[in-house]
């Protein structure tokens, strides 16, 4: 007894894709594990990082000339806000310790549950 004909148009593509995926994953990971691939990859990403550094410096100068805040200025502002948030959190914490919570609490559940077999 044999199976009926496979009329699924995706059937052939499915088989081909499974083989392709296996092949690419096997050979791709083998290739990527080689030192030459790591060196090439890091050369590319190093160049991208360097390009970004140069670009950041140039755009910083342009923004300064136009009397506009740079990314670094925004980051410094963000850091200041972060410090203020941290101070607020400390104040909230201190208030929680000396005063009862003002928001209504959900009713506490009993911590008495036992495992089913017990």
């Amino acid at each position: 007894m044999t199976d009926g004909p496979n009329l699924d148009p995706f059937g052939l593509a499915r088989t081909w894709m499974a083989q392709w995926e296996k092949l690419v994953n096997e050979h791709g990971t083998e290739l990527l594990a080689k030192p030459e691939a790591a060196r090439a990859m890091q050369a590319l990403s190093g160049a991208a990082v360097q390009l970004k550094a140069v670009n950041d410096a140039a755009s910083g100068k342009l923004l300064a000339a136009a009397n506009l805040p740079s990314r670094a200025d925004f980051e410094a502002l963000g850091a200041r806000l972060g410090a203020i948030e941290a101070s607020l959190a400390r104040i909230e914490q201190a208030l929680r310790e000396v005063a009862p919570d003002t928001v209504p609490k959900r009713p506490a559940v009993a911590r008495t549950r036992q495992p089913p077999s017990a």
Partner: protein
Amino acid sequence: MATSFLDSAQSAVERSIQRSLKGLGYMASSAPVLGASAKDVVLSRGPLRLYHYHPLTDEVYRVPVLLVMATTNRGYIFDMIPGQSLVEFLLLRGYDVFMADWEAPRAEDRALGMKDYVEDFVGGSIAEVQRLSGESDVSLVGYCMGGVLSVLWAGLNHVAGPKNLAVFTTPVDFHQMTLFKSMSDQRYFDVDRLVDTLGLAPADMLLTAFDMLRPAGRVASNFQLLDNLWDDDFVKAHRMFDRWSNDMLPLAGEYFRETTKQLVWDNALMAGTMKVSGQPVELDKISAPFLHVTAEHDHIVTTAASAPLIGLIGSADKEQIVLKGGHVSLIAGPNAVNRMWPRLDTWLGAKSV
């Protein structure tokens, strides 16, 4: 034979029609809402968000559970949709559940290092769980790098320690993660320049690194979606996992630098030389009951990288379970619902009273 031929033809035609109709629907519909279990944000510090989930039972186990998410990904993998949420599963089984989740670190978070993640974020979360629950005992459950952070905290605090320590697919021998090791080869990868220039390790760089572990994965995944557009369950699951796996977070620069140098280059956790802010991490002094669940087909944290952990932990009560599945399907999806979650519940329930 004729009937079989007609059935086969009818099925092929129906699927083709469904693919076309549902393909249009897929483009037009919105993504599913993920991570929607009711919760309060009880601690917010830098990229850390500590959630406390609302209990779903009248009584809970005495010992609360703190889930610690991997730092590169969002925690909603633990809370996908009703019926496929580990958080919901644990709540229904009567646990008091907390989760240490992560937001993208901001530029000013660049200086956050391993010490901040282990002591301030994991340690701070434990302290908050203790305060809110009124219990000194806490069970710590970490996934991937969340598992590493949990193990590091336990190795630094083995006296106070967690009540129970369970980790999933947690690497310890980073030299066995051969592709990651190759990609961050010390001879060619200038981590100092990257961190000093960018401040954060960019999310797209990390996503590319993960993608390269299976170079054909993304194309094959899209083909599978096209092939299965007629299947609503498949499409729903694909959308959830696709969204999560692309929703990668950048890493704070110092944390990335220390991870690269200490864990990947020096393999310090495996060598027993790991220190956090000058304090030695003593895995052999951890005495809490320990469970390590690994996946048989994990292509990210390979068995060779995760398996040695159990031998390094000092606990007398320790167990490693290898389950079928991959790095993500171990913790979420039908595989996890049927295999891992019940095993975790059986192990943890008896130890949570």
